[in-house]
């Protein structure tokens, strides 16, 4: 099905990433946001607050991130498509509710415009230091999806995709921008509503008597169907370990079945591998990057290739679930992976894990506050090629 025309700002625009992200939310059908202001993410909901009364829907500025991150989930169970927006410290405060969304299978989107940390860190400057927090921040076993735009255009396109994936898998999806992507202004082309595909909610067609909120259909899908409050289903939702009826059940057998499904529906989903690759067939060195760093990496790759080095590009568009199989297949064919990122070592650990020692892994760390210098990445490529 297609986007609601009312929410789509069709045309060619000059937008920053935060505003493009907001337009992606609207085009996806999000009509509810609860937020708490934090730099450098706030412009997303500031624009939403400005747009939503003329489109129809609700923005509420909550008293803190804990409230914001659970308020939107109430809205989802009330029938809305909903999201919240934050940055590192706020993201930390939201972790319990990311776990709640995973456990209760509440489709929703968390936009994180990353900044330097730890703690208050660098409020107005970039980092990519929440990547592991996105994956492992809440307690327990669960899968999530994290998606990494590298331009305002992608802030639109991939936010839209984030909503679609959240509905398809009934999972919280993280849009992992960073300060530079959030604040850079570029051309953004927004298609007509009729050309924007929107994934419908997995809404149940069963009668209340036949409906079990957490029962899979037996068609191989690991994603159960959903009902909303007020439709007569009288369902129960809990963050406790629960059976197919949604009733609390603390037995190891129920826990095992539930959390394995929560993990497997994401981590083993074949269509959650999304990347941009160049020269991967004959590369000696592959640069693995994501988000803003991928744009600096592109320049470094071009320079290294101008020097005659066989360098490939692998840009992670979906960072979580991590494309383990892809890296594992590439590893025996290359000398090394070079991994620049705006942190002191996060996704590089995944590359290393997936490569299983079949290729070297060279990290190009940066503690945040600016982007890499391309020459630092070139230097690592040259070193990796030896």
């Amino acid at each position: 099905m297609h986007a609601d025309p009312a929410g789509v700002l069709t045309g060619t625009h000059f937008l920053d990433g935060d505003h493009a992200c907001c337009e992606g939310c609207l085009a996806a059908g999000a009509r509810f946001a609860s937020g708490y202001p934090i730099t450098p993410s706030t412009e997303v909901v500031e624009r939403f607050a400005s747009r939503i009364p003329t489109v129809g829907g609700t923005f509420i500025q909550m008293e803190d991130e804990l409230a914001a991150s659970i308020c939107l989930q109430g809205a989802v169970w009330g029938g809305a498509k909903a999201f919240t927006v934050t940055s590192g410290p706020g993201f930390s405060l939201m972790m319990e509710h990311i776990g709640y969304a995973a456990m209760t299978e509440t489709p929703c989107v968390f936009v994180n415009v990353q900044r330097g940390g730890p703690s208050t860190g660098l409020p107005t400057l970039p980092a990519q230091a929440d990547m592991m927090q996105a994956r492992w921040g809440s307690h327990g076993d669960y899968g999530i999806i994290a998606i990494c735009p590298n331009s305002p255009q992608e802030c639109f396109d991939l936010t839209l995709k984030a909503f679609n994936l959240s509905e398809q898998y009934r999972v919280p999806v993280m849009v992992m921008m960073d300060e530079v992507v959030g604040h850079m202004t570029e051309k953004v082309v927004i298609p007509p509503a009729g050309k924007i595909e929107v994934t419908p909610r997995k809404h149940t067609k069963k009668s209340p008597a036949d409906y079990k909120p957490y029962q899979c259909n037996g068609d191989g899908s690991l994603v159960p169907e959903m009902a909303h409050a007020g439709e007569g289903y009288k369902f129960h939702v809990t963050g406790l370990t629960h059976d197919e009826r949604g009733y609390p059940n603390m037995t190891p057998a129920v826990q095992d079945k539930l959390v394995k499904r929560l993990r497997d529906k994401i981590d083993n989903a074949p269509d959650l591998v999304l990347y941009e690759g160049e020269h991967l067939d004959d590369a000696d060195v592959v640069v693995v990057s994501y988000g803003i760093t991928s744009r600096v990496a592109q320049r470094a790759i071009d320079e290294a290739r101008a020097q005659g080095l066989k360098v490939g590009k692998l840009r992670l568009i979906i960072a979580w679930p991590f494309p383990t199989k892809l890296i594992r297949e590439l590893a025996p064919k290359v000398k090394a992976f070079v991994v620049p990122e705006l942190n002191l070592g996060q996704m590089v650990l995944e590359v290393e894990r997936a490569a299983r020692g079949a290729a070297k892994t060279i990290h190009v760390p940066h503690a945040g506050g600016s982007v890499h210098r391309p020459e630092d990445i070139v230097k690592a490529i040259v070193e990796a090629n030896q």
Partner: protein
Amino acid sequence: MSSVATNPVLPFLRTDRMPTIWCPGCGIGTTVNCFSRALLDSKVDLKNLAIVSGIGCTGRVAGYVNLDSFHTTHGRAIPFATGLKLANPKLNVVVYSGDGDLSAIGGNHLIHAARRNVDIKVICVNNLIYAMTGGQTAPTTPGHVITSTHPYGTFDPTFNLPHLVEAAGAVYVARWTTFHVRQIARSMAEVFKKPGFCFIEILSPCPTLYQRRNKMGDGLDTMKFYKEHSKIKNGASTSEIGLTKAGEIIVGKFVDRDRPDYINAAREQFVESLGERYVDECAAVECAAECCGEDY
């Protein structure tokens, strides 16, 4: 053979989940009985009634009532309920949770929801202690009470919840004890029809942790205590109804006033600023209907 009369509250309960986890003498079940009676008496539309709980003994209420029910995270029932109500304004949303959940970890949400006058009904079962975690001090625990974290007696000042929520902006505030079953049911039925942020505090025994540790007897002894020490004072000033360990318990309906709720205040402001450009009705429900296609 004569037929056995069915308890009229059974349809409101998830009997397949019985027995409950609550201890003998606990008052939470009594409040649920009152809630069911209020549902019967008020003839509220059950299809559009949703209940949201936080964590703790009272947090389990959502799991035992046969409604759309949400057992959320510790302290966050109110912001969850806020999202539910704003996304689907036709729902009657009840938050049913404990004093620790609502006033300690959830205290910030409690005052801000009252300030906004979000149209939700908060039922606070106050047993004066953290029960499920083992009897630690709560913000509502009166002075000199023995708890597991104040083994020599509490000295933290005690929260007066009716006073707090009135000051924050609640439009309806009442307090009862589990001895006052008819009054509880009447208050509950009343708030289903009262727009805005409504708060009912219900004092309830915790014989296992509060009364036992303080040598106050069992559940029955507590009911006698409530009977002897309670005084109904409708309209009493909430600043003068603080609770002590053995003193008078002032109960009644203290506040019943009107002011625009959050949704109406928002609507008025948007109409004033945007006029015809304001789109009122595409609330999330209709949006979802559209997103879900014809089969929604």
